[in-house]
């Protein structure tokens, strides 16, 4: 029960962050889009993107000594981790959004594209995690 409340509260912080970026910058807090936007070839508007990402990274560093249990590395073979990372990178850019862009922001704006994206990545995520759990064991 307490864990569910903390998780919901953490989620609300993410929702407030998305609201600030919308209200002041008129931008969507989609992390994969923000990250892709700073990769070459250079786009306009790289400055606020870099600042947003640095804010995230520094917050992770600042909270690591207080909540070390929140930062465990995933126990999977290295080749599988590389494949997983490549798939997340390619897939999020092909579909133009990830858990934050489609999940948080897109569903909050009642975008049909985002509801479909979320349904699809939840289904394939459940399939891949469940199959990997049978092959490599639970995490």
């Amino acid at each position, binding site marked *: 029960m307490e864990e*569910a409340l*903390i*998780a*919901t509260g953490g*989620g*609300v*912080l*993410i*929702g*407030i962050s*998305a*609201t600030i*970026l*919308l*209200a002041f910058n*008129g931008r969507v807090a989609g992390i994969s889009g923000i*990250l892709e936007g700073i*990769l070459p070839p250079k786009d306009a508007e790289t400055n*606020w*993107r870099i600042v*947003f*990402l640095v*804010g*995230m*990274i520094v*917050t*992770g*560093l600042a909270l690591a000594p207080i*909540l070390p249990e*929140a930062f465990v590395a*995933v*126990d999977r073979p*290295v080749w599988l*981790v590389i494949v*997983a*990372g490549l798939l*997340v*990178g*390619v*897939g999020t850019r*092909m*579909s*133009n959004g*990830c858990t934050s862009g489609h*999940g948080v*922001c*897109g569903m909050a704006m009642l*975008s049909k594209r985002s509801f*479909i994206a*979320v349904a*699809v*990545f*939840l289904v394939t*995520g459940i*399939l*891949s995690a*469940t199959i990997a*759990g049978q092959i490599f064991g*639970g*995490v």
Partner: protein
Amino acid sequence: MSESNTILPALIGGILFGAGLVISGMTDPTKVIGFLDLLNGWDPTLAFVLAGATGSHMVARQLLKDKIPEKFETAKESKVEIDRPLVVGAAIFGVGWGLGGYCPGPALTATIPALGTTLIFTISMIAGMAIYRWSKNKTSSANE
């Protein structure tokens, strides 16, 4: 709006976003895989995080939409149609998410504190984004 006015909101937004991910447990890939893996003891945390984030943002949007319509306009996704890249890309992302336990935000936030396989994941993820961006630019310039 001049660009300097976008910097402070971005900094506060990044800090709150990172804090939300850490506090809610999303930087721990075992919690994410624990939600997606249905056969090894189910962990519902992710559902609460998504409900808290999407729900609060949805309420805030309703309160703000008539006050700052110009911001809503620039934040809209330009595409509305359901196309192949949307569905195929989301399917590919989901497979990687279920295997690695990270989506882009948590991976980035956890990379330096966790290092190890998390760092390998994040480098691979950015490489995947760069490969797609590069191939897309190549295709679009070939079509011009």
